[in-house]
C-alpha cells in the first residue's frame, strides 16, 4: 500500500478532497495523504537562518541550507510543537530563538501546514477563480476550471447542477479521478443528502459519508494507473 506508493514515487496518490457549497463555503475537507519533508536539526547560538513572522507563523526568509528552504516554517522546538508564532507555553518563538541562554536546541522545519481557517479561505478563493475562468473564456459556453495542473499536483473539480463543487487534489499522474469525482457525488447524495439530520449547505458531519469516502479513495488509488473504477 503506502510503501509501494513511496517506491513508485507516489504515482497513485490522492492528496485531499474538498467539498464546497454553492455560496463558496467549505462544507467538507479530508486529507488522505500528506507527504512530509520535515528537517530537524540542532542549532547553536546565533542562528544563521533569518526568520520572520509571516501569516502568523515563523518562517525562514533567508539563509537556505541543508534541506531547510526559504518559506519553511518552524514546526517544533526541542520536540514541543509550536502554535503559529507562540510556543505551547505562550512564549513568543522569535524571542525564544533570539535568547542565547536557550541554546543548543533542536528545531524542526517544514512546509507550513494549512490551518482550518486557511483551508476555508482557499476553498472560497478557488470558488471565485472557478467562475473567473469561465468569464474569461475565449470560447462561448465554457464551464469553470475543471483541471488545474502544476508540477507537483493536479486539482480536479466537478461542479454539480446544483452548484456544489467536489474538488480532488491528486498526483499529476493519477488516473481515474473523473470517475472518483462522480463516485464522491454519489456518496454525498446517499449519506449526506439522504441523512435527515443534515442541513443543506452546512458542514458535513456524517460518519457514513466519511467512511464510504475513504473506501472510495482507496479503490481509486489502487485502480489509478490500470483503468477507471466502475
Amino acid at each position, binding site marked *: 500500500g503506502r510503501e509501494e506508493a513511496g517506491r513508485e514515487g507516489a504515482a497513485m496518490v490522492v492528496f485531499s478532497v474538498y467539498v464546497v457549497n454553492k455560496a463558496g463555503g467549505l462544507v467538507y475537507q479530508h486529507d488522505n495523504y500528506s507527504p512530509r519533508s520535515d528537517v530537524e536539526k540542532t542549532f547553536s547560538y546565533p542562528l544563521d537562518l533569518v526568520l520572520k513572522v509571516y501569516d502568523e507563523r515563523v518562517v525562514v526568509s533567508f539563509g537556505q541550507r541543508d534541506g531547510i528552504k526559504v518559506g519553511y516554517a518552524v514546526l517544533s522546538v526541542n520536540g514541543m510543537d509550536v502554535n503559529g508564532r507562540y510556543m505551547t507555553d505562550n512564549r513568543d518563538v522569535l524571542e525564544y530563538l533570539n535568547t542565547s541562554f536557550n541554546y543548543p536546541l533542536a528545531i524542526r522545519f517544514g512546509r507550513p501546514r494549512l490551518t482550518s481557517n486557511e483551508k476555508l479561505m482557499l476553498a472560497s*478563493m478557488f470558488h471565485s477563480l472557478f467562475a473567473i475562468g469561465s468569464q474569461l*473564456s*475565449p470560447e462561448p459556453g465554457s464551464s469553470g476550471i475543471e483541471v488545474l495542473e*502544476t508540477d507537483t499536483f493536479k486539482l480536479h473539480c466537478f461542479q454539480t447542477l446544483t452548484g456544489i463543487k467536489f474538488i480532488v487534489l491528486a498526483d499529476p499522474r493519477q488516473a481515474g479521478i473523473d470517475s472518483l469525482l462522480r463516485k464522491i457525488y454519489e456518496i454525498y447524495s446517499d449519506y449526506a443528502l439522504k441523512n435527515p439530520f443534515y442541513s443543506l449547505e452546512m458542514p458535513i458531519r456524517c460518519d457514513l459519508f466519511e467512511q464510504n469516502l475513504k473506501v472510495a479513495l482507496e479503490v481509486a488509488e489502487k485502480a489509478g494507473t490500470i483503468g477507471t473504477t466502475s
Partner: protein
Amino acid sequence: MSHSARLHTHTHRQRGGKEGGRNGEIQGGRRSDKPAARTPPQAAQRSAGVEEMTVHNLYIFDRNGICLHYSEWNRKKHAGISRDQEYQLMYGMLFSIRSFVNKMSPVDFRDGFLSFQTSKYKLHYYETATGLKIVMNTDLGVGNIRDILSQIYSTIFVELVVKNPLCSLNEPIQSELFRTKLDSFVRGLPFFSARAG
C-alpha cells in the same frame, strides 16, 4: 479467433492488394511487402485533429501587472468588460492562482502553476524568473507547451524587446516587428489552424 482473422487479412494484403480497396488502403504499388506502419484510419484522424486545435489568444504581463502585449487569433467570445478591465482581471486571476498553488502544494515545487482547463479551452502559463508572465489560451487538444512559451520569451521577447534600446520595459510594447514576428511564430505552430468563420 480474432488473431487468426488478422493473419488472414495480412496474407490477403501481401498477395497483391486485391482486397486493398475493401480495407480502404491507398497504396502506391499493388503489393505491399511490409505491414503498413501507418494505417489509413490514423492518418485520417491526424488531419481531423489538426483542424480542431487552435490558439485563441495570448497575453504578456510584466511583474507589476501591466499588460505589455495582447494578440488574438480565434476568439469567439469576449468577456463583456473593457479591455483594460479584462487585463486586470486576467492578471488578478493568475496572481491568485499562483498564491493558491503555493499554499496548496503538498511538496516543494519547481515550476508551480502550469496550466488549467475548462470544458472549452486550456490556459497555459509561463513565468520567467524576472516576473514576466506569458499566457496562451488554446484548444483542449493541446498538451504541454511550456517549451514553446519559453521559446517565445527567449527568441522573440528578449531579442526584439529587451535588446531594443527604444523599447521601455514597463510599457506596452509598441514594436511592430515584435508583433509581426510573434504573429508568424504562432501561426507556424503545429497546433495552430485558422478556423473559417
